[in-house]
């Protein structure tokens, strides 16, 4: 009888791509809990809706491509993109924002390039950026944190949240500027005074009510992923360090022109989400560890630049997309030194330098 002919190796570590993605999704839960606690069920609705829409769009495209849907959906990459997109979008944004974002992320930025592994740009960030540029009004209405709510008013309940998302009910009473918004618009007050006068800062502990805890939540999730060795420390730590470094240099002693302290930057906006969930996206970042450090550091620097001197209050999405452009270039010049060779090689050389 003929036995099976299979190429070596014949042993394999348990685990699949799907389990990796599932672990990442689960690690977003602490941050999501913080967001929901401080801003209401908006983020949760976003996450669930975006997740479902992304899976639906992926299934539709797979059907059109004639691929087995169950097999490809099982890698949970569409769900993860939906979760990240949902976390990035403002809570209580209309459903069609979520739909357009999901469409851009899954179909435009991922499937049209060939599916998982073939996309050069981070799909969630592409979706976010397309929305931000196309629908600036809806994308800049951020929810008010619990601590800033006036007396007697509570956070939106689930029903009113659903009506806001699906029925277009107005949410003006529940919106407020984010800490980054506030800093961007400040020209006159010293940072100290800003912290005292603005409710979003005065009601907070370190850097901005609600947002600081959300970032802490994502930091916690990220540390768990590092512990599980889902990714290496090089990219996220480089990004955070570079951002802190830039903020420290340009802090300007807390004057009215200051861009914000390092602590402020680390715990505001999408910093931690970006560091541990966006920058670490393996498909679109650099390959070698050295490359990842350069990639992460460049993202950190760019985030600070755009936040402080650019047009947008938060900049993680743009910074990441710009570095996605550069990732192949970084890869060419950051090969590790192979065993038995004196120096690392460059991917562009035809022959090894003697």
């Amino acid at each position, binding site marked *: 009888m003929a036995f099976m002919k299979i190429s070596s190796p014949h042993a394999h570590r348990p685990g699949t791509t799907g389990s*990796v993605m599932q672990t990442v999704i689960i690690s977003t839960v602490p941050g999501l809990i913080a967001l929901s606690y401080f801003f209401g069920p908006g983020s949760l609705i976003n996450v669930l809706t975006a997740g479902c829409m992304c899976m639906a769009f992926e299934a539709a495209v797979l059907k059109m491509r004639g691929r087995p849907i169950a097999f490809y959906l099982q890698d949970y990459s569409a769900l993860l993109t939906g979760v990240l997109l949902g976390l990035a979008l403002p809570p209580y944004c209309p459903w069609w924002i979520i739909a357009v974002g999901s469409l851009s992320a899954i179909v435009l930025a991922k499937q049209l390039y060939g599916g998982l592994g073939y996309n050069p740009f981070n799909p969630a960030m592409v979706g976010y950026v397309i929305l931000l540029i196309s629908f600036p009004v809806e994308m800049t209405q951020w929810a008010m944190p619990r601590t800033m709510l006036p007396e007697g008013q509570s956070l939106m309940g689930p029903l009113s949240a659903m009506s806001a998302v699906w029925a277009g009910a107005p949410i003006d009473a529940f919106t407020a500027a984010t800490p980054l918004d506030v800093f961007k618009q400040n020209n006159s007050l010293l940072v100290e005074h800003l912290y005292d006068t603005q409710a979003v800062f005065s009601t907070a502990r370190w850097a901005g009510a609600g947002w600081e805890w959300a970032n802490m939540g994502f930091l916690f999730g990220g540390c768990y992923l590092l512990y599980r060795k889902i*990714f290496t420390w090089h990219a996220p730590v480089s990004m955070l360090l570079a951002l802190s470094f830039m903020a420290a240099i340009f802090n300007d002693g807390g004057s009215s022109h200051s861009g914000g302290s390092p602590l402020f930057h680390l715990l505001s906006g999408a910093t931690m989400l970006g560091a541990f969930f966006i920058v670490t996206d393996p498909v679109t970042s650099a390959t070698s560890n050295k490359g990842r450090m350069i990639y992460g550091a460049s993202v950190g620097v760019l985030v600070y630049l755009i936040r402080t001197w650019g047009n947008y209050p938060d900049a993680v999405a743009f910074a990441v997309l710009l570095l996605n452009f550069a990732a192949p270039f970084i890869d060419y010049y950051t090969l590790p030194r192979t*065993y038995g060779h004196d120096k690392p090689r460059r991917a562009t050389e035809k022959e090894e330098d003697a």
Partner: protein
Amino acid sequence: MRKTWDIHGGIHPAENKTQSLQSPLGSVPLAPELVLPLNQHIGKPALPLVAEGEQVLKGQLIARADGPISANLHAPTSGIIQSIEDRALPHPSGGSGPCIIIASDGNDTWTELEPCADFESADRNLLLDKIRAAGIAGMGGAGFPTAIKLNPRGNLTIDTLILNGTECEPYITADDILMQTRADEVIAGAMLLRHMLGNPEQVLIGVEDNKPDAIKALNDALATADNKAIEVVPFPTKYPSGGEKQLVQILTGREVPAGKLPADVGVVCQNVGSTVAAYRAVRFGEPLVSRITTVVGEALETQRNIEVPLGTPIGHVLQHHGFNASKVARLIMGGPMMGFTLETANVPVVKTTNCILAPSAKEMPEPPPAQACIRCGMCAEVCPANLLPQQLFWYSMAEDLEKLEAHNIADCIECGACSYVCPSNIPLVQYYRASKGTIRQHAIDKEKSDRSRARFEFRQVRMEKAEAEKEAKRKARKLAAEAAKKKMAAKQAAGVDKPKVEKADVLASAIAQAKSQDLSPEDQLAKLERAANSARSRLEKTHARAAAAEGEKKDAILARVKDAELKVQDTERKLAKFIEQTQSASAAEASTDKQEDVESPEKQPAAEPDAASAAIEKAKVKAAAQASMTPAEKLQQQLDSLKTRVEKARARLEKAEADNDENVEAFRTGLEKMQAKYEKLTLEQTNSQNDG
């Protein structure tokens, strides 16, 4: 604790080593038929020395190494050579190759052996010869001829001898049990190799720390022998620390440079199994005829290590271990990380068979379908060669050979750690093997085309050179001609009168030439005799050559013989004629001696029978006639001659038609042409007559 270094990456797969260590080292009954492939090593296959039907004894040399990178082959048992034919080989390709088949007679009689009790005093080259003669190759799985490794190039000094007892692959315990049961032979072998390499400073036996029994056995043997030269170095278990390059790094911290050997950094690394085999070859004169193989897997009832003769069919081994063919997922020769699958159990055990693995489906399930590569980089984290397997994978898919080479695909040791950890279950090593093959083929093709291009360019240059030379010659000739012309013109101008060269003068010069060749009768005789002699000797020579030649040449030479004979006849005839003529001439001379004074001047020209002068006379007459004719007479003469020729042609054509000659058409056209010419000339004559 001796310092050890760590390799980059590495994995910790489930060891699965306890199954085969429950039972002691065993054996299987002798198989009725032993199949011995001629190539069980790296290098050229061995050349058979025996013929079908020949009786051989155990340990007898049956095939000798072909060249330096090859190994001898010996009969693993006594019996009769059944045949030398192609059989399925234990190779990943599943192909077949030449094998010597021995039908064992069951007696297992050894041939005469040459033991050597004291090798410390023996000459190093003699020891090398013994090891080479014993056909020992790397038994850890690579199969590199041991004698070559133990003879590094003259300019390299070896300061470290490493014995590889690592056995990092899961399931395999062959070296483990060897070290446990034959530790003294391992130590003795180490001392032998140490002596052969000129006593290097360190002799290290590298063993992973998951083999405590083996480590203890080795240390006990060292203590008993009070041996301070050898050190047993345990280090943390990790796959693939047993690879030669990795072990060198772990035990010495040195990296073997890419494309070079460990000898280039002063290290020689030998598997413990090969060491023991080398020791037995020298000490007892035993060639390599058997080895220890781990037989393991859930599809077997018995799992253990066995000492098995080379050439034993795997099927025979499996049969004696309670093999369940329906339970087995796949049959592997080697370990689960680097072993290759066998499609049939009808292949033999060879020098490099360290394990026969027959796992059940539960133990080794079918690999799930591969998903997309997400560049997670886990493969890069575990690669012992510090490569970027994810990039190698993408470039393999794209068949971008330049980028593959820039990413050092040649340094991949195909250990399988990357595929082991890949979350997408991509068979990475398969891609790298395929790419390496493509690159190798490209290199061969490129070399071929480079050589063709070099030949073509050289040819172009050569032709240009030839052209240039011709041009130069032509130019030189032209210059010489011009110079000659100038000289002539200068001579003319200087007043040397040179009469105009006319037809009659050409004739005169020809006459002069012929006259100058007029030799005296004696000289002419001598010349003719010489010609006859040379023709005769040429004939003899050609005869001799014809006798010596054979085949086609003979025919050609026979033809030449014929020619030579004709020539001889010709020259002899001329000679005879001349003699006759001279005799008649002298006779005529003698008879006309009385009238000599009056008639000799007239007779002499007539007595010269030269064909040349006769022709010249004729031509002279004709030229004179021509010179004295008018144009009209000339034309008439032409017409007359043409008429006779037309008559002749007509007669010939009639003959041809009568004979049905194939050249009838040619004759006809010839005739027609001549007739046309005749008519033309007649018309011309008429016209001129009318004019005149």
